[in-house]
């Protein structure tokens, strides 16, 4: 499986997939997509990169332990829930902020978006943690 071709294209493929996963995450509110699917795509990217370049390489590239990334995700999602404290609304109430950019496009920032980003991180973190841990053993056999 670990052919030269695979090893050569895997980093590019993984990078593209990560980019695509962010795209999927951000379009999720209006088009098919969202944090969960985006997270799965990113996790696949990490798994592919792990198979091609070795787990140590991936861990170095990730800087943080994947489970810490998952923890960040739960934290962000909870934070999105607590935002409503500031406007005296119930927990997890969706809050929206529409910004007009200089070129006239409208940028919508919202707590559901923050929440979705949290979901993304949890899925990436948890699944890539498992995949990397499993790949690691295979390597050292």
């Amino acid at each position, binding site marked *: 499986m670990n052919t030269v071709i695979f090893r050569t294209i895997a980093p590019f493929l993984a990078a593209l997939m990560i980019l695509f996963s962010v795209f999927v995450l951000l379009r*999720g*509110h*209006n*088009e*098919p*997509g*969202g*944090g*969960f*699917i985006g997270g*799965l*795509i990113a*996790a*696949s990217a990490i*798994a592919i990169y792990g198979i091609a370049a070795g*787990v*140590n390489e991936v*861990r170095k590239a990730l800087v*943080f*332990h*994947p*489970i*810490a990334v*998952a*923890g960040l*995700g*739960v934290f962000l*999602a*909870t934070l*999105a*829930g607590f935002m409503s404290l500031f406007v005296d609304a119930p*927990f*997890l109430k*969706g809050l*929206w902020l529409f910004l007009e950019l200089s070129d006239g496009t409208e940028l*919508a920032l*919202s707590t*559901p*978006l923050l*929440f*979705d980003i*949290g*979901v993304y991180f*949890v*899925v990436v*973190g*948890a*699944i890539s*943690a*498992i*995949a990397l*841990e*499993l*790949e*690691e*053993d*295979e*390597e*050292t*056999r």
Partner: protein
Amino acid sequence: MSDLPNHYALLLIALAPFITALLAPWVNRFANGVSGWILATVPAAIFLVLATYIGPIADGGTVSFTMSWVESQYFHFPINLSFFVDGLSLIFALLISGIGTFIVTYSGGYLNGHRHQGRFLSFILMFMGSMLGLVLADNIITLFVFWELTSITSFLLIGFNHNKEASRRAAIQALVVTGGGGLLLLFGLLMIFAVSGHSELSTLMMDQNVLRDHPAYLLVLLLVLGGAFTKSAQVPFHFWLPNAMEAPTPVSAYLHSATMVKAGVYLIARMSPVLNDTIYWNTILPIFGGITLLTGAIMALRQTDMKQMLAYTTLGSLGMLVMLLGLSEKVAILAALLFLVAHAFYKGALFMVVGAIDHESGTRDLTEVSGLRAKLPFTFIAAVLAAISMAGFPISLGYFAKEEIYLLFGPENVWSMALVLVALIGNGLMMAVGLAIAIKPFFGKMLETPKSPHEAPLSMYWGPIILGVLGLAAGFYITDVGQIFFAPAATAVYAKLVETHLKLHFDALLIALSVATWVVGGLAFYKLESIRSFLRRVATVWRWGPDQGFDQFMFGLIRLADRVTRLLHHGRLELYLILVFVCLAGALFTPLIMQDALPKLPAFPNLHFYEWSIIAIAAIGLIAVIAAKTRLVAIVSLGIQGFSVAVIFLLFGAPDLGFTQLMVETLSVVILALVMTRLHLDQRDARVLEEAVRDGAIAIVCGFGFVAVLLAVLSVELDTSLSDLFVATSVPIAHGRNIVNVILVDYRALDTLGEITVVMTAGIAILALIGIRLGGPKRGIGAPKKAPKSGAPKRTTPRSKGARA
């Protein structure tokens, strides 16, 4: 009962110790050495604030505070954070904050230089806050919360020396016993609410006969007493209290004088107006109280460890209080309150004295210390003052407490006469212990002790001296003290106005009974050595007690848990799976058959060619799974089926679902393949034919079950009101056109939050499991990864065994 406006001071009183507890470790770090004095300003301030209530409450008023805590439209149970002060709570709160002030300074001296002094001060302040909250609580849930907090904080305090096994055992024992009692109490309090409809104690007190006249009275009484007796260490739940002596001495002094164990007494006194003076109350309480009194007093004589001696006299005193409250008489209630305060003063002082002796000489064994009078003069003074009150010599508070008890003595009532005799013997024996502790260590020849003794610091003797002086002064001004403190408190317990008649008076009968007490006490003191050796001989024969029973109970519990775990958690993976899937099949078919809702076969669907081809590909995937020679091929073939399903989702207008299914299938194939190599599973499926048939049958039944349930669901009209709502509101209020995503992150975000938490936790658990396979965690999360040694022992865990079988 709010004749006064909301007093926010009450909220502050209950919360201030907790806030201070948070700051205590820092204070201790920066003001090492004087941190006790600094932190003691908080309880002192609380005491002063409470002292301003003395006047209004002596005039018959109350102070209250109410704040809504949990509001719900679904159930009518007013949970408020509410406090109120009447005569009874005021006495307790003053004792807790006043003695607490001494205890905090004392801890500053006693644990000076201890590595965890800050932690200790923090615990003791939290404990103080819990006790204050408990005695001030008005709402029954508030009461319960603080009641449980005292159990938890005392667990922390008793187990403070957590590297000692005895400490850990004592802490767990206290927690289990008082926590168990707390559950009974919770049930009892909820019953009280259900029966009376009152959630506030202050209004419950107005409605005096609502509980007594109800058929559930006995149950309520037993539940409340279950809480009170475990907390106040009545026989047979008394064993945790002497064991709790493992805690550092300031804890014992506090636990035994003003707090913890008095919580049960407080509860009994608090509930007296609505529960007392029935045949059950007047029988159960005096009997348990009397037995506890005698047990405590006799067991105290057996000990040579001075802390243990005091601990058992506390037991005796608690028995006395319960017994007196159980008489439901005006005089008895007044006697109980007097005794309570006198006991708090002298017991707190004596514990601190013993702690000082232990701290300065290195031992607290009565037979090992002697002649310390000259070395510890102030400690000696404190001990003598306290012992005078404990022995009940005239004009001390202890004297009046005793006199009040003996007032119950009358030939017309045999029952109370018997109880007075019990009280007399108990008083006498406890007096002997008090004398022993005040006299033995200080007089006689100096003995060699582990440390060369010298006077304790001011922080350790000013408290006991003041408490000792108070014990005498309160007796000296008994008429005024009685009117200001004891009459309002007794009124709260008796629920009718109580005028005190306390003054210095000498009645021949009372004098005679007092003299009898002193004779009993003096004799016991004189013969202490021989009584002790006799009791020790008894103890060598009679070994079993509730303390051993507790160990046996805990051991049995662990054995039972072990058995149950072995039964359910046998480690054979294929049996787990069979169990799960058989249950699943049962769950699928049972409701269909019970409700006679087995669906009819639907008409043959008229599908397009490309739709048929997708279904055919899925079927081919399944056949490939079954026909696969190796497991890896089977896993990949399963992926074929999964992808086909994803395409079906896409075709039928669920792109999100299809998309997700595609990703999940990909990842599960990858991960399954990795797991297979990781667990060193056999390449081939080694099931014999019978097993294959059994598993296949279960699989087919489950499959048909799902189909049947789905068909049954589809055969009824779907209720689309919810999805209509989502469709209609998704863009206007949630600003999203992808309804699936809007539901996930907005409408049902709480569900999603729960799910992602589960995902993360599952991830951690799986990492841990993989770590176990490697033979123990060599690496922590976040640690730099090192490649495990190639020769890592391959342990055969049940998991792989099961999979291979």
